[in-house]
């Protein structure tokens, strides 16, 4: 079963949180599409060498990383470092030799992930549901209406402003809540999310 992992992925800690839980899903035989991992550039050692030669990357940037015990690990650290520098705007995608990232390319890539997903996990934290996440919830629901392989949406709320209102609509927009409850539900724990996904996975396997 494939799932699309939606959430506000704009800070390192939210990305880490989402990536760590995506890893747990993989350990349970569920295949997650994680948007920030999907657009992560493949930074090869050649690219790192070129950036060093051009003076766009400095040897001291890599000091910590070069202490890694294997070439593969060093490669991965450099990869993460370059990705982070691009996110911060310290390096441009063109300098790294990556294709441009535009609203059109981001939408196309993530939409592909949504189209092939059997379910969505949506992290709903924040003062409102993140607008990108809300849009993805809407798209998935619209596609689900005509696709029996799409099982539903598992909302996940860790934000205490929401969880303490769990019995009164979780403090989120009524239309968004209505869409989620039409094809799923909101959970305050990841265990709840995982249990729901396993049920859907079993249903898919039984239907196959």
């Amino acid at each position, binding site marked *: 079963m494939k799932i699309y992992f939606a959430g506000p992925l704009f800070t390192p800690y939210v990305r880490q949180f989402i990536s760590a839980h995506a890893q747990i899903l993989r350990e349970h035989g569920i295949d997650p599409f994680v948007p920030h991992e999907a657009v992560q550039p493949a930074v090869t050692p050649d690219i790192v060498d070129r950036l060093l030669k051009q003076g766009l990357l400095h040897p001291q940037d890599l000091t910590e990383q070069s202490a890694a015990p294997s070439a593969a690990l060093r490669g991965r650290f450099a990869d993460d470092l370059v990705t982070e520098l691009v996110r911060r705007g310290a390096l441009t995608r063109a300098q790294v030799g990556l294709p441009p990232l535009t609203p059109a390319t*981001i939408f196309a890539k993530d939409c592909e992930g949504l189209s092939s997903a059997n379910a969505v996990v949506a992290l709903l934290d924040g003062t409102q*549901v993140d607008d990108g996440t809300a*849009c993805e*919830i809407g798209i998935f629901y619209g596609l689900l209406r005509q696709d029996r392989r799409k099982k539903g949406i598992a909302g996940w709320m860790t934000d205490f402003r929401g969880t303490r209102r769990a019995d009164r609509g979780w403090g989120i*927009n009524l239309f*968004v809540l209505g869409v989620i409850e039409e094809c799923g539900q909101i959970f305050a724990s990841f265990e709840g999310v995982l249990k729901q996904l396993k049920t859907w996975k079993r249903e898919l396997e039984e239907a196959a």
Partner: protein
Amino acid sequence: MTLKVYCAGPLFTPYERDFMSKCGQVLREAGIKAFVPHESPKPKVPNDPRSAAKRVFDNDLAAIAESNAMLAVLNGPEVDDGTACEIGVFWALKQSDPSKKGIVALQQDWRTQEPPGEGKGLNAFVLGCVLQAGLLCHSLEEAAQQLAFWQAELQATKASTA
């Protein structure tokens, strides 16, 4: 045939509702049928077992399903989550409904504009979705013009198939 437009936007304060009603009014003056969620009468059903969310969902989803276009007001520090979700639903239904012409987004908020605006820009996924199915406008007049164009297109198609 009249173009039916679903007007999506934040409608949580009196002045937001006034603005959404104004959008609906401008479209109606151009001969377009506008659905503005907060204006729609909510039928009173005695002992309605549905939750508040389910009532809003039923009401708004039916209107999105039968609309030919969407006017999405993106004003706010980010796109309102309800609006963003409605944009997504409209986009997905449009994929299998040729009577859906597209999405016109209206953005006037300083906080989501690139410099000299002071914001971080619009969410790239939402913007990508809007641009894939329509366009971004910065004035109501411009948005109304595009919707009037789709209305004319729709009428031309109807005339040629009649």
